[in-house]
């Protein structure tokens, strides 16, 4: 069993074992063990990758190929490069933290953890796939459990939010599948057979007319998951109704599938189309950055603030990807990683506050820092990290993006870049507003005096997420170098 | 052949009967009446068979024999339909069509 397929097999085994669990205690132990194994595997993968990279200079390493459907030339092909490795580590960390945060889910715990682990299967599979069809299958596996997770274990108008989220993402998948099949049916332009394999398609020059048509479909198909304006509205209500670990996983990992897909599929396979359409999507992305930030200011529900903040920061990822240079792409990937961790932390913190006070309304909360010192302190630190304070990963990511984006000399790109840079001010406004309102100030409700302090599993989850943020923030050099090598082949196709 | 009557006149007769039957099938409210319309349709078809047999192929007998089959089949089908209607009546105590519209949106 090769190192990569284990990432799909181990979760499946975990799910099967979970089927035998009887109650909360057993479910969570099994889920914990499963996710710890995944986490260990992902750390091991980093080292294995670096070792392999020093001898092997293919685009993807650890490649394995199994034929699945001969007639359509669909293979189960997997492989990784630095970007996939980074994303896999991110997923493993967030799943592990999510299991810790969900330690106390006592309503149908077995089914909850099963759905969660199936979701992570889909995500891992997506990141290791090189075959388009397999990638799409795993993408669907990742999206569908969201319906159950939000609809059953969520809060508020959960059925409606679950339905809206799933339908919008399904709509995006439908558009995406048209794009993918478009690519597939044009993949024999060089005289070979039709193929779904990304690396093979990249050798072929797909005709320009096809590129112009299918690029927007593929881009939108992926970017809806990455909260592209104006298709982002599934995100606020979806996150607000979802249970904590699901929000963490969704905002932290799933939404990164979008950026990754854009990068891996849309831009790599359809480069001319990407360049033709770049201005249009760049405007949408830049609008999304400012729009999300402005929208976050006026929200009253903590999760809505975070959801709009995610729209803004993920807009930055798409914005950076559309700038087509190495520094900006480097920044986009680091931002995916950084934002994933930080937003997962935020959702975890919000979940902790909500679980204790049963409200997410910022006008009702206040002065909680005195009662919950650990959660309060971590909240303030996370807030500062989120708005791009140096010493945390957000700064590294954003500076890469801004410097990279600024390398374009023309006025159009410059103005959009300045728009994106201005978001640092608006982000500070809503973050400090949120922190100031709920954590600081006088205690808003006398009943809050007796709120239970942070438990060991909550603290572990938070610390687990904070450590990579600080490491990347203080020592970014290694990550950048590792990513630059893998970005190189993708960039060459575009230039 | 009947003296002085062409095939078209009798065809008209059987068509009128057929469409009366069809109309009756679509619009009547009483299940028995619908059955009667079905009989009309069948009989119109039977007339057609005999008619074509007499006027176009006078040396053959197949038309007439087939008509006897139709009559027999109509009888059997009526018996079956009545049985269904009786069981339906036991269920909804009515033989109006509007009381059988259960499988709707």
């Amino acid at each position: 069993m090769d190192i990569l397929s284990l990432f799909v097999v181990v979760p499946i085994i975990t799910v099967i074992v979970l089927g035998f669990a009887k109650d909360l205690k057993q479910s969570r132990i099994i889920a914990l063990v499963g996710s710890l194994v995944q986490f260990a595997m992902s750390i091991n993968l980093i080292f294995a990758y670096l070792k392999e990279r020093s001898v092997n200079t293919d685009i993807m390493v650890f490649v394995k190929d199994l034929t699945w459907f001969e007639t359509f030339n669909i293979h189960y092909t997997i492989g990784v490069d630095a970007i996939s490795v980074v994303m896999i580590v991110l997923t493993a960390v967030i799943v592990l933290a999510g299991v810790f945060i969900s330690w106390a889910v006592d309503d149908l715990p077995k089914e909850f953890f099963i759905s969660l682990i199936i979701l992570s299967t889909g995500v891992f599979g997506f990141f290791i796939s090189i075959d388009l069809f397999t990638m799409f299958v795993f993408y669907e596996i990742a999206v569908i459990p969201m319906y159950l997770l939000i609809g059953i274990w969520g809060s508020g108008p959960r059925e409606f939010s679950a339905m809206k989220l799933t339908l919008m993402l399904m709509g995006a998948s439908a558009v995406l599948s048209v794009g993918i099949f478009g690519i597939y049916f044009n993949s024999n332009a060089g005289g070979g057979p039709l193929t779904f394999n990304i690396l093979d398609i990249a050798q072929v020059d797909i005709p320009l007319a096809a590129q112009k048509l299918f690029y927007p479909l593929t881009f939108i198909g992926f970017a809806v998951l990455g909260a592209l304006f104006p298709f982002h509205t599934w995100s606020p209500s979806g996150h607000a109704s979802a249970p904590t670990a699901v929000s963490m996983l969704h905002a932290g990992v799933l939404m990164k599938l979008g950026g990754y897909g854009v990068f891996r599929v849309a831009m790599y396979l359809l480069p001319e189309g990407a360049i033709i359409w770049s201005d249009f999507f760049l405007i949408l992305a830049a609008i999304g950055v400012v729009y999300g930030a402005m929208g976050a200011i006026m929200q009253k529900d903590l999760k809505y603030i975070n959801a709009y903040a995610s729209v803004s920061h993920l807009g930055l990822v798409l914005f950076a990807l559309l700038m087509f240079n190495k520094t900006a792409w480097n920044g986009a990937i680091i931002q995916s990683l950084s934002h994933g961790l930080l937003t997962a932390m935020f959702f975890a913190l919000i979940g902790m506050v909500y679980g204790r006070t049963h409200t997410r309304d910022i006008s009702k909360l206040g002065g909680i820092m005195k009662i919950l010192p650990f959660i309060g302190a971590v909240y303030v630190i996370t807030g500062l990290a989120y708005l791009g304070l140096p010493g945390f990963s957000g700064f590294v990511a954003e500076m890469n993006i801004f410097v990279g984006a600024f390398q374009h000399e023309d006025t159009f790109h410059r103005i959009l870049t300045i728009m994106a840079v201005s978001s640092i001010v608006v982000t500070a406004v809503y973050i400090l507003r949120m922190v100031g309102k709920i954590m600081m100030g006088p205690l808003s409700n006398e009943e809050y005096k007796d709120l239970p302090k942070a438990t060991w599993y909550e603290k572990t989850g938070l610390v687990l997420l904070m450590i990579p943020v600080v490491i990347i923030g203080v020592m970014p050099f290694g990550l950048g170098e590792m990513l630059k090598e893998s970005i190189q082949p993708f960039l060459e196709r575009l230039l | 052949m009947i003296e002085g009557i062409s095939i078209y006149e009798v065809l008209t007769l059987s068509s009128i009967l057929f469409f009366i039957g069809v109309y009756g099938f679509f619009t009547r409210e009483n299940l028995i009446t619908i059955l009667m319309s079905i009989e009309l349709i069948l009989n119109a078809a039977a007339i057609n068979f005999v008619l074509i047999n007499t006027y176009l192929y006078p040396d053959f007998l197949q038309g007439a024999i087939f008509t006897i089959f139709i009559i027999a089949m109509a009888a059997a089908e009526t018996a079956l339909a009545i049985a269904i209607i009786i069981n339906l009546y036991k269920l909804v105590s009515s033989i109006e069509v509007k009381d059988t519209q259960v499988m709707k949106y």
Partner: protein
Amino acid sequence: MDFSYTIWIPLIPLALFLILGLGSKKIPASISGWIGSLGLGASFVLSYYTAYQYFLHGKVNGVYEAVVYKTTWLNFTETLHIDMGVLIDPISVMMLVVVSTISFMVHLYSRGYMKGDDGYTRFFAYLGLFSFSMLGLVMATNLFQIYIFWELVGASSYLLIGYYYTKPSAVSAAKKAFIVTRFADFGFLVGILIMGYYTGTFDFQELNNPEGSAIMNWASTSFMGMSVITWALILIFMGGAGKSAMLPFHIWLPDAMEGPTPVSALIHAATMVVAGVYLVARLFPMYYFVDDGFALQVVAYVGAISSLFAAIIALTQYDIKRVLAFSTMSQIGYMMLALGVSKYEGHDGLGYMASMFHLFTHAMFKALLFLGAGSVIHAIHSNDMRDMGGLRKYMPITHITFLIAALSISGFPFTAGFFSKDEILAAAFENNMLIYISSVFVAGLTAFYMFRLYFSIFWGKDTKYEHAPHESPMSMKVPMIFLAFMSIAGGYIHFSEYISADRMPFEAHLNYSLAAIATTVGLIGIALAFVFYKKENNLATRFSNAFGPFYKWAYDKFYFDEIYLFMTKKVIFGMTAAPIAWFDKHVVDASMVGIGNVTEKFSYKIKGAQSGKFQDYAMSFIGGGVVIAIVIFYIWIR
């Protein structure tokens, strides 16, 4: 010479922050104050040692060469990268001395002032974080590194202003400070991006080299009539103006007084607020050579206007910390304008030297003034000067040190402030007459409002206090005495020997006629204050009424706060953010949900096809058959 040990100067406070921050529950309050003070004491000693080594033994061929240690931290492109490192040159060493001195004094003072407070350990942790950030800022080797520490200083300031986080006014003040400076930092960042792109480097040594490509090629690209480098410099100055509370970014400084007084002394008087001045000084060769110093003129006028503006407002305020806050803004305006009117070579660089000199002396006496104010507030539990009076009888040491600081800031002869202020006025006189006249006027105003403050607190009416105010404990007195000493002795350092724009020492003499003018104006100010405030009378009120509405405008700080509040609440929140949130909920989201609703309505309309009537089914069946028959027939005929 080997200066690599200087890396410890900021690292010790960082270690303090980590230890005290992570261990704040376990470390008892009595030790944390000692740990903090000892740590800063070590940095203090190291800084003075560095200064001694550098200034007395560091000259190479008569020039103070810069010593740099750096390592690449983040690679952007092949040419652009962020380094982390240490830059030792005259102004950075001077700043090391200033920052570590004030920080150490504030640490000692806080041991007494913050005693008994709940978050005592947390306070010292934050002080450590701030000291680390500020020391790192002054030793930065490149634009991005200074930006990184700039942001960290801003975050420390946020945490320290919001230290009393259960007070809504403190929370709001911290937020305001951070956001205003962040807006200024937005300009700073864009300036850095422009600078980096068009010069290909962020490094200070490469940028500042008068024969280097950055300065030589400044005219190569222009945008809207001005060179892009000039734009970059102005934007970078915007960042500096934000941190240094220059107009129009000054609104956060008065509110920042919500923080504990030692914080005000450290951050908002002596160190963080001079970061903007330091930034311009750091990039001075660029400011001077690019585009004939256009950006430098902007600096000069912003500084001059700010100093006048702030001095006028300071005349009217009753909260003693606010008077001091506006005074700080005014004095920083002096430092900015001194840089602005300065030239480069030798004696022409008098403005540069004077600015740095005044930075040094101002740090000493302004910190002392704040610490003194802190003692008074600690004793009386009120900030308002109308509640005070006659305190000289109760708090002698505070009284004397405060008087010394007040004399120094007013430019009374033989104090440190006299020397530094006169150098500034001399530089202004040589280069820009308008700014000179304004500055002399401001000197008079300064003396007046300072002594208004002094007399109102220590003389004036004999207030009866509920419980007799007591003098501060030793931990608070010692730093004040040290700073008072520096407020006098600091003036006798021959600054021009050490600090100059081109790093070569020059001779600066006191211009006696200008000094006489300035001293006279100062003495007039003191005398006026003496008349109005030494004894209780209503001369002041009658005088201020004579100004009519101007007095009210000055008292209300010329409505800048109201304008900003209007801009943020009504324009940005009300007219931009709220409509966007509404738009998102009711238009964008509604269209998505609308698609669902349309589908539902459509389905509702066609559900009639499932009528349950078998006759309808038969009709559809036959109808379909007829259609197919017609189609087949049609095709068959063709």
